[in-house]
């Protein structure tokens, strides 16, 4: 028994050295994989505890927003919608947008909300913002259940051969969320000013992302280039692709992807650089 124990010890040697800082240790993150599950699971449980409607809220929110936007933008203002019924157009956009905005807000506040844990227990800190984004993915799945009947109700044809773009769109959404999410999470620990910046930022991005209007509506090409720099542009466009059947503008998509990848790297690097000191600041 004891000899087994000592053998195991000889095998795994762990070194903390003040002079050597590592970048992401993926092996370690993998070792803690269950924590991603547990954090996500806890947050979902807490979110819907003591609510009478429970998970229904994840469906009701986008549904009500769809109704409101359809009424004002679709009917009253006649905003074009890439030949889709406006409710389908706006719901498909809101599905991903809500994932992004909830995920971003959650993860930006996640480090502060879990400060008590950070101060007392070690684990790779990346678990926290990532799990808080996964909570938003759970809401996405709930709302997606409603998306199917909406498609049927409006008799919306779907190009099945193009359905590959749905999982891709979700992946792009996650990338687009994780970058600013980790960046803001780390900044928020250090400067609480960001607590006030986040809702404002989400609001601004909402109007700068073609969720409730198509890019083609913008008359000036320069403005279009600005809009497609929004990390969520590519995700939403990819998601609508099997519905509209319209040709994807590859320049726009690539620009948007490049923007989210750059933010992702910036976010992860900054997070990693400040991660060690979260316990001292939080």
């Amino acid at each position, binding site marked *: 028994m004891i000899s087994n*124990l000592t053998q195991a010890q000889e095998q795994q040697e762990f*070194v903390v050295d*003040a*002079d050597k800082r590592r970048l992401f240790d993926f092996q370690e993150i993998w070792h803690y994989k269950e924590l991603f599950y547990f954090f996500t699971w806890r947050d979902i449980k807490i979110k819907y505890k003591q609510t009478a409607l429970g998970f229904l809220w994840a469906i009701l929110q986008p549904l009500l927003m769809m109704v409101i936007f359809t009424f004002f933008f679709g009917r009253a203002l006649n905003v074009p919608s890439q030949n889709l019924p406006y409710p389908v157009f706006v719901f498909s956009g809101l599905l991903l947008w809500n994932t992004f905005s909830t995920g971003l807000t959650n993860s930006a506040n996640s480090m502060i909300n879990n400060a008590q*844990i950070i101060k007392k*227990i070690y684990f790779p800190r990346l678990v926290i913002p990532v799990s808080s984004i996964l909570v938003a993915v759970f809401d996405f799945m709930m709302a997606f259940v409603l998306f199917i009947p909406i498609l049927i109700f409006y008799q919306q044809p779907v190009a099945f051969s193009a359905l590959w773009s749905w999982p891709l769109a979700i992946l792009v959404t996650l990338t687009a969320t994780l970058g600013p999410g980790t960046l803001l999470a780390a900044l928020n620990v250090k400067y609480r000013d960001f607590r006030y910046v986040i809702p404002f930022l989400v609001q601004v991005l909402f109007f700068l992302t073609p969720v409730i209007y198509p890019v083609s509506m913008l008359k000036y090409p320069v403005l279009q280039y600005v809009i497609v720099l929004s990390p969520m542009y590519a995700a939403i466009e990819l998601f609508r692709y099997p519905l509209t059947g319209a040709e994807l503008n590859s320049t726009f998509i690539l620009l948007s992807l490049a923007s989210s990848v750059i933010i992702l790297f910036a976010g992860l690097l900054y997070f990693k650089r400040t991660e060690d*000191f979260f316990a*001292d600041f939080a």
Partner: protein
Amino acid sequence: MKPILEVHHLAKKYKIKHLSGGYLSLRERMLTAFKPGNGKAEDFWAVNDVSFEVQAGESIAIIGHNGAGKSTLLKILSKITPPTKGKIITRGRMASLLEVGTGFHPELTGRENIFFNGSLLGMKRKEIEAKFDEIIDFAGVEKFLDTPLKHYSSGMQLRLAFSVAAFLEPEILVIDEVLAVGDAEFQKKCLGKMEDVSKSGRTILFVSHDLAAVEKLCPKTILLKDGKIHMADDTGKVINHYLHTKLKASVSRELTTGLRLIEFHLGSDRIVSNATIPFDIVLEHDGDRPVINEFCIIIYTLRGFRVAILDLRNYANQFEYIENRVRITGSIVKLNLVEGEYTASLHYGINFTVGEASDLASISVSDDCNTSVRKYQPQYRGVMELDFKVN
């Protein structure tokens, strides 16, 4: 065989900002960027050049006064905060328990909290499932498993929290003062559990103010002082030294104009219940011999409850008056205090000034272990155990 834990020249620096609150505000940061020198911070080495080794199966205690750097050292060892300098090598799975019940959420049920907390502490889901019954059995909360934690009493919450931690099976267990809470019965259970852990050949790193627990669990002790290792030796020796320095701490203070208390000793190295405790008090005065009307040593519990008095008023003529000093010596014949921590103060009325000099000495009383009956926990015995006879 290589040691299970090696710590080399560990140091941690904090910057103390005198103006700012807990966290930085962007405005502050921008202001200081334009006004160099204005936001200058003072360096503070919470841990300074600490090195030690722990062999597998060895349990070590870390003691020291508040602010000696114990908590910072544990935080570095637990990887919660990185060292500024130095290196740590661990060979084996390490778990640290700086707090019980970390991550407990009032809205989650007992069962849910066990899983979340266990996972935070580094247990795999399968491990938690396998030990689940034992955990709830140890905590004694099986009836409330599916009740949200917010409906638990604080004692129940604590029992649940400790139970999860008790079933961790790391090779190195780092424990901060977590036993200082909870009811006596449960504390005993926890100590027993920790003894099992250390006897099963695992390593415990234990920080505590409870010197009795330290003596029971750890054969070796490190005494920290000002962030440095002051002494590292067998627990008995270190504790003796620690208590001694504690009593010798400078007490010099002015009682009234022209009169200073310069020495206050109560007890020797270790104080045991029912022992005879010598005391030695020296005053220094300018000018005339002082008129002492009141003079009492008062003993308090750490919570400030007044426990006992040594009324020396009537013995003022037996004090030694030599040149500009007054010396009072004697002994408490039998200190029948139950084991625990106490402090001593001096109440005085000298030259028409009445006052009290508090916290002059801390008295750490240990059990004398000389009854055949197993004693109740100190909490149940109160502060004083009376002598009696049955006719």
